[in-house]
């Protein structure tokens, strides 16, 4: 809907009203399986971010090559700029896709499950990268995620959707046991460890009420 691919059934979507619609949005789709034999190097994909949607043959110029190099460096992808995108690891591909989305200097960056299928280390690196772009380049980042724990420290606002209900607000307002438990319809804990916030769902061993019901079910 934000990209203009679907019409809202009611209301309007306004994005950065002073800039012209779709061009001010960068988009990184959910990870898909890429063919390793696709003859597209990381730097080719980033260059397509400039004008890949236009008809005609690619243009080459020193200024474009420099812009691509700068973007690759900004996401830490210069080291594998000449490798085929399909042969990169999940975290490396995510960096290149973010570079592709950001090279046209959008105001808004949309990411669909950017941390899915990434290992813990790569996920942390991508989060740090996004956080840096938000602060340094004034890009708003809107993303969807199933696993929210690693994202909690950097998010400003959350729309938490679960079991057909939603809660929205700042991270402080939404990520509370009372709000999330109500949303899910069963008990959710919010744990603070070493300054980090973790959301843990399901019956914990310290929860006497749930233990009692479990026991009641086992004993006939």
């Amino acid at each position, binding site marked *: 809907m934000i*990209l203009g*691919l679907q019409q809202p059934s009611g209301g309007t979507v306004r994005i950065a009203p002073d800039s012209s619609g*779709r061009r001010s*949005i960068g*988009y990184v*789709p959910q990870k*898909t399986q*890429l*063919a390793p*034999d*696709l*003859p*597209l*190097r990381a730097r*080719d*994909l980033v260059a*397509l971010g400039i*004008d*890949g*949607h*236009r*008809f*005609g*043959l*690619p243009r080459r110029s020193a200024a474009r090559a420099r812009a691509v190099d700068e973007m690759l460096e900004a996401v830490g992808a210069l*080291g*594998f*700029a*000449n*490798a*085929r*995108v399909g*042969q990169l690891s999940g975290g490396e591909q995510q960096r290149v896709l973010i570079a*592709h989305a950001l090279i046209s200097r959008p105001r808004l960056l949309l990411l669909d499950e950017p941390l899915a299928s990434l290992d813990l280390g790569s996920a942390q690196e991508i989060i740090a990268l996004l956080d840096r772009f938000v602060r340094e380049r004034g890009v708003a980042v809107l993303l969807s995620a199933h696993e929210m724990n690693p994202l909690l420290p950097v998010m400003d606002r959350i729309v938490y959707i679960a079991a057909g209900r939603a809660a929205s607000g700042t991270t402080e307002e939404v990520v509370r046991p009372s709000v999330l438990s109500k949303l899910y319809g069963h008990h959710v804990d919010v744990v603070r460890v070493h300054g980090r916030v973790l959301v843990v769902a399901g019956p914990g061993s310290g929860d006497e009420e749930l233990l009692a019901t479990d026991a009641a079910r086992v004993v006939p």
Partner: protein
Amino acid sequence: MGWLFEPGFFSNGPVHVALVIGGVTAVVSALVGVFTVVRGQSFGGHALSDVSTAGGSGALLIGLSPLSGFVAGDLLGGAAMEALGTEHERGRDVATGIVLGAATGLAALFLYLDATSGTTTGTAQQILFGSIFVLQPSIIPVVAALACLALGLLALLYRPLVLHTFSPEIAHARGVPVRLVGALYMAALAMAVALSSITIGTVLSTALLIGPPAAALRLTRGMGRALLVAALTGLGATWLGILLSYDSFYWSPSRRFLPVSFFVVAIIVVAYLASGLARLGLRRRPSAPGGA
């Protein structure tokens, strides 16, 4: 070099025509074919070769040239596949299968009628396996125009096609007219298959479309290089095939020209196998930063 080029090769009119038309069609097929392979449309390309058979044999039946039948049939078949196929991968496969089946059925009818009408002998052989040495020089302008049209389309579509091949989702989100790009590419593919049908025949046109690009893609990292290597491989295979076919008159015991199509396809298969060996060689070498 006398042992390689048998007498008269360079002064023979039909050989000149074969070299020009064979060369042009091989290059068009290879360039269009790189996208066919990376987009996973090889099955669609093969179905179009069966549509060629139906179109070519049908055209002969009503007194037209096979080339006009190839072009009309393939454009129609491509349009049918685009219209029937949905966005989903499986929908496209089913649409391709339906068109392939229908075309093969028509080909069975037309080839039977051609063969029994008696006015055109050996047409089935020509349609299916090519007739590069009996091509008239008068069709060169038509071939050149079709080649320019196919390559022009490819150049026009280049960037959105690469983006769409990489990720249909990103292309869609960035405002690429996805259906239009797919349909125009199908038109370029139809023209490439029609062109290679007149040189090595409808049955073997898939070899020119898929073989050189498949070999090139094993050896290159970027799109530009893949296109260049594919075009050179297709051109080399076709010209060498014509030469060997011409020479075969002198060394085959029965003093006959063995079919060009056989030699072209044999060379393409050898090139593909060689590209596999070459890639193994590349892998053994310590790879540069950034990997192979």
